[in-house]
């Protein structure tokens, strides 16, 4: 049974331990490469996001060096290894700083002002993290942990690296920081934190389940307690903001559906180009871009329809573009 819980032998255990903790410490032999790849992968990811180029972003993910630090953190959490946890955390922090610096510079040079309307779709997606992103990160963490322990699965590591999606949100944070877009920066930050937390959670579960949890290697009871406390904090860090965000997304999505139906009641002749519907404390706002063959019904009437349905204040702004066709023929 491939997925049955099976303790790895001591030789494999030692191999994994050495490869993780020798590389995941500042000043270790891998530090220089780690910094170089942090800078390069984030720069490529930033440019890929600006160009809306999926191949470039995937390439950046392959170059991304974070997987070792994440697995080292996961392993240290299982065993309550405080020093190793601190080292891996410091390495991760260096990588985050280098990546942000790199994407910030790319942003300053190529996109000092990012307007919402011009955001490439891949970059825009990183400002809207959701439950699916959380699911991907959790499974990627599981896969990373499994592939690290099973030599026969090492071929999957490149795929795992692509799934471990820390570079794109980090690159997005740097770009938004460069363009001083605080809201988008916070949203990309949320995407980064949830990805990071879910990846570590997934990796922790995989390492523990597939044989890296070995009682004889554990630290003191206090160290183990600290590990559990950090693990719980990670769970909270991932689930609370994402739950709040997901709730908001679900609410806004339901409202968008309601607006779409109301627009048909309001003026059946118009076609919706873009729709942004947000529910907030004290009321809701709708930004609607429409086209149509004639001037639409006045916006106040749509606001009235929507506030009747919701029983609260609704503010509507409508941008309208006339579509017209003109064909002609003349014969002598």
């Amino acid at each position: 049974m491939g997925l049955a819980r099976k303790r790895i032998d001591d030789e494999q255990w030692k191999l994994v331990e050495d490869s993780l903790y020798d590389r995941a410490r500042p000043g270790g032999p891998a530090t220089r490469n780690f910094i170089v790849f942090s800078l390069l992968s984030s720069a490529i990811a930033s440019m890929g996001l600006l160009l809306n180029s999926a191949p470039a972003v995937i390439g950046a993910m392959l170059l991304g060096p974070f997987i070792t630090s994440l697995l080292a953190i996961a392993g240290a959490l299982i065993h309550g290894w405080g020093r190793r946890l601190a080292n891996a955390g410091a390495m991760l922090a260096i990588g985050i700083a280098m990546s942000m610096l790199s994407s910030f510079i790319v942003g300053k040079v190529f996109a000092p002002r990012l307007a919402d309307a011009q955001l490439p779709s891949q970059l825009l997606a990183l400002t809207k993290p959701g439950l699916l992103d959380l699911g991907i990160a959790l499974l990627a963490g599981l896969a990373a942990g499994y592939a690290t322990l099973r030599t026969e699965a090492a071929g999957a590591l490149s795929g795992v690296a692509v799934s471990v999606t820390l570079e794109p949100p980090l690159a997005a944070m740097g770009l938004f920081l460069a363009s001083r877009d605080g809201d988008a920066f916070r949203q990309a930050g949320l995407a980064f934190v949830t990805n990071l937390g879910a990846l570590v959670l997934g990796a922790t579960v995989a390492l523990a389940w597939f044989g890296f949890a070995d009682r004889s290697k554990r630290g003191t009871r206090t160290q183990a307690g600290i590990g559990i406390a950090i693990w719980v904090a990670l769970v909270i860090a991932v689930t609370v903001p994402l739950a709040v965000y997901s709730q908001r997304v679900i609410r806004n999505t339901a409202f968008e559906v309601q607006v779409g139906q109301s627009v048909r009641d309001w003026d059946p002749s118009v076609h919706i180009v873009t729709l942004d519907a947000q529910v907030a404390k004290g009321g809701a706002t709708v930004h609607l871009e429409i086209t149509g063959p004639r001037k639409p019904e006045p916006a106040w009437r749509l606001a009235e329809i929507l506030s009747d349905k919701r029983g609260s204040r609704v503010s509507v702004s409508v941008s309208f573009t006339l579509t017209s066709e003109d064909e002609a023929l003349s014969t002598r």
Partner: protein
Amino acid sequence: MTVFGTLSDSEADAFTTSVQQFERSSGINVRYVGSSNFEADLLERLRRGDAPDMALLPQPGLLPTLVSEGFAVPWTAALKASATEHIDPRLVGLSTIENQVYASWYELTLKSLVWYSPSEFARLGLTVPQSWNDLDALVAKVVAAGLSPWCLGIRDGGATGWVATDWVEDLVLRFAGSDVYDRWITHEVPFSDRVIANAVQRFGDIALSNTLVYGGSRAAVRNTVTDAARQLTTSPSKCVLNRQASFLPRLVGGRTAIGPTADLWAFPLPSADGAKAPLIVGGTMSVRFSNDPNVDQLAAYLASAEAARERAKLGSFVSPLTTVPLDAYVSELDRSVAGWLRDADVLRFDASDLMPPSVGVAAFWTGMAAWLGGARLSSVLHEIDRAWPATSNSIPGQVTVKS
């Protein structure tokens, strides 16, 4: 009951909050619907038989149309008292057509203000000017200090130009006098008349100057109204003065403190000769489109001092009622504006809001924007005159407005 108007965002919230007490005591539910395209939307609603119960009308110039087309319902004798007592008779004149009162004043805005940063004034050693000569001296001092005196921007989407028309109105009132101002509103004095052209040119001496406006001679058409308001609040200020109405704090937004020793404060634009400054106001009047007793109740409430006090508690509001004590206003700005208005010897309503809409909120705005963008002044003034309708409804202000 539906009230239709132009209020949006925090103003709309404040209005609905202020009528909650009325809703509780009367059992009448008041719904407010606002539109940025108010004038066209209101007429369209009325003409297709979908009239709101009441409207908060910001343009007295629209009232004659509402009356002549039979939509506005005259105030009953019982309501008339609440609409005319304890209000400046010059304002009552604007809501009166052929001796019938059709509206009640709800709110006033003071247009003739100059905003400044008190700390910047202190740093530059400036004092509040009492006459136009003082203002000229202040401007010269600011230029000598290497700074731009005026913040100016007229861009505002579909309403681009209103800041320029407000400037011109203030200058016509100060340099051509209130009599010319009143005759200008009715087109008895046309735009192409020399006195009006001189006032516009006086504005151009500022707006088209490379040294008097931050950003140079084309800054007015490049900047939005909001840009210009915020230029005052940068540290150090990009410019020192902004002639703008009492609602400038709403344009600035954020946590800007308003007061004589706070981030921003204002003084009335001085008169030409050092006398008490003549003031131009804008405002909102309530008009009803139904005889329903519930509408009467709401109309009476909105005209009452009780409603004004409720609204004043929420800030950014000045009532036209002299019975509302100054200490009812929660903000120092509201208190000061109410005081300046009560103290004014010459008070006039915003001319563009009294002119026919085809001129006041169309040709005058676009003409000023075109001129500041480089068009010839004589052609622009001629075009505005041409936009004046051949037969326009009588302007209510003509009935009793006298200084």
